[in-house]
């Protein structure tokens, strides 16, 4: 009987139920779109922000002391970081927030004509299989995306011949009359190599007078196998606050609870601290401006999405409230009759709620898929790529739909509970 009554109402009031389903679908679609984008936006914003370069620089401890004392940027006092520790960066507490990084080694070299030139060894698109099962292609190809390729292409580390290849800055290429496809002989302090130019770049800075090659090539030229000068890290960070500033000055000044909170928040300073823990004798320091802007942009983007989600759900709740109340008013005689022939408030409320929840499920499912579609539109139009569907969006949207539907039903249920059969059946 209950089923017949539910079916009867859904069929008879299909227009009203369709409106309710549509309202719920609208709220659910916006919620699922915003949540999908919000959960994926970290990666997307990271990819966008990677174009601004690294936000953390790691150098050997002694080099840092010299730099602090004499305000000298160049040179590392003959101290190096260990190449075999590079993978550890992706094992820190905030490993997920490390989106890219690249090691650097500088080999002071000489060309055939005696011109001195800096050959920088680094990763271009170095492939790493991480212990977590993930894989990462890291390097300057993504961290220096503002470089303007004048000729040729980026050096592809994933081909077999990459150690014989190099990229040359536009200024150096012009001086030497070199272009993509030419070869150049480079003599380092410990070896001499012939490199094929695969690309000419314009970085708009001092890199334009340098040559970039793979890490092992530069290490071979300078005799620094297994060593690196510095590491640049692109990490997703939370904007600094009073706690992070205190910690950056002196982590030992924090209480145990404060230190735990600081350590477990993705401040640039706590990520630096964690990098220092895994890279022997290193000092990691944030490149302040980039670190701040990354976190701030992400936080603001997410806040905006949360606000849109909340507003859309409030709108949906108000819509449901109006429609369900109108439906109960329209059915007041029927509800009064049910009460008159022995229905208790609970059973009549259950009937109305079941009808609305069946409608909500239909609207919620339709809204979820529509929202996923909206998310793809947002992904393609804002970030130029698809938004990955996170399974956790499904239960969150389901819970939100239930909450919004329940809230939307409150006035109608209150009206239903107050309704007296005499008011609608006998006119008093």
């Amino acid at each position, binding site marked *: 009987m209950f089923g*017949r009554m539910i079916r*009867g109402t859904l069929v008879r009031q299909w227009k009203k139920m369709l409106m309710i389903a549509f309202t719920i679908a609208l709220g659910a679609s916006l919620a699922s779109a915003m949540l999908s984008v919000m959960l994926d936006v970290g990666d997307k914003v990271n990819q966008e922000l990677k174009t601004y370069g690294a936000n953390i620089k790691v150098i050997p401890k002694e080099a840092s002391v010299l730099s602090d004392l004499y305000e000298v940027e160049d040179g590392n006092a003959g101290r190096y970081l260990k190449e075999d520790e590079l993978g550890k960066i992706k094992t820190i507490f905030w490993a997920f927030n490390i989106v890219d990084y690249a090691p650097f080694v500088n080999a002071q070299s000489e060309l055939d004509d005696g011109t001195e030139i800096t050959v920088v060894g680094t990763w271009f698109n170095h492939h790493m299989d991480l212990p977590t099962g993930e894989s990462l292609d890291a390097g300057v190809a993504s961290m220096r995306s503002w470089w303007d390729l004048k000729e040729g292409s980026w050096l592809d580390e994933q081909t077999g011949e990459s150690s014989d290849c190099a990229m040359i800055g536009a200024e150096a290429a012009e001086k030497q009359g070199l272009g993509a496809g030419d070869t150049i002989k480079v003599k380092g302090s410990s070896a001499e190599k012939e490199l094929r130019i695969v690309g000419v770049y314009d970085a708009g800075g001092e890199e334009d007078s340098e040559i970039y090659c793979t890490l092992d090539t530069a290490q071979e030229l300078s005799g620094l196998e297994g060593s690196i000068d510095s590491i640049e890290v692109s990490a997703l960070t939370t904007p600094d606050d009073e706690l992070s500033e205190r910690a950056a000055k002196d982590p030992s000044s924090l209480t145990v609870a404060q230190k735990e909170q600081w350590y477990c928040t993705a401040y640039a300073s706590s990520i630096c601290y964690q990098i220092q823990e895994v890279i022997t004798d290193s000092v990691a320091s944030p490149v302040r401006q980039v670190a701040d802007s990354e976190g701030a942009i992400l936080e603001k983007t997410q806040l905006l999405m949360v606000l849109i989600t909340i507003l859309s759900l409030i709108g949906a709740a108000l819509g449901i409230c109006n429609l369900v109340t109108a439906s109960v008013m329209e059915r007041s005689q029927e509800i009064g009759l049910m009460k008159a022939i*022995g229905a208790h408030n609970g059973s009549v409320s259950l009937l109305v709620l079941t009808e609305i929840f069946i409608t909500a499920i239909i609207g919620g499912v339709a809204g979820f898929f529509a929202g996923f579609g909206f998310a793809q539109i947002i992904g393609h139009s804002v970030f130029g790529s698809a938004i990955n569907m996170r399974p956790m969006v499904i239960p969150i949207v389901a819970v939100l739909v239930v909450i919004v539907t329940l809230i939307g039903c409150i006035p109608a249920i209150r009206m239903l509970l107050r309704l007296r059969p005499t008011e609608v*059946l006998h006119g008093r």
Partner: protein
Amino acid sequence: MSLLELKNVYKIYGELHALDDVSLTVEKGEWVSIMGPSGSGKSTMMNIIGCMDKPTKGEVLLDGVDIAKESKKNLTNIRRDKIGLIFQQFHLVNYLTALENVMLAQYYHSMPDEKEALEALERVGLADRAKHLPSQLSGGEQQRVCVARALINYPEIILADEPTGNLDEKNEEIVVELFHKLHDEGTTLIVVTHDPEVAEVAQRTLVLRDGKLSKEIVNDHFTGKIRFDDQNPF
């Protein structure tokens, strides 16, 4: 013990005394009609006897239980178990068939039983219309469905509020005939009506005026059949 007993019942809305010191008794198996002009308190009395409202003052004993003192939940249970309601506007659920409308009363009482509901429709001569929606039935047929719904749970009392108010003469006769059958089977009937012809077929007629019981007429000539003639005492 009387089936229904009202003792000095008042129902007061602000300054208005909808019922003013009304006392009456109805015996088991009796057929009583309540008459009176609009605003005389008929519907108020009906609501109180039907456990849909409580008196402001006084006692209403239904089968020995003072319903004036019962909770809202208990009143619903008493209404469900002891009273069958028939309305002037029929109040059928328009998306349920005639059969389902009868089963609705069973559903809120105990368990729906399609066979039993069909038998109830047979008693009112509508077995062949069981699968029809209310919109596919005439006014008289709808009222007969309403009667079937009222009697499906074997109530102690059937309360009918203007049961023939929306019917033509022919259907009025059919409905009164049904009441007669129910009365013969021992059902207690209380019928509120404006219509003197319907009132006079009852054993006893109570006349309400301004909330007071102004007259009680015992119909000596009780036949249970409607008379459309000039001999009507009202």
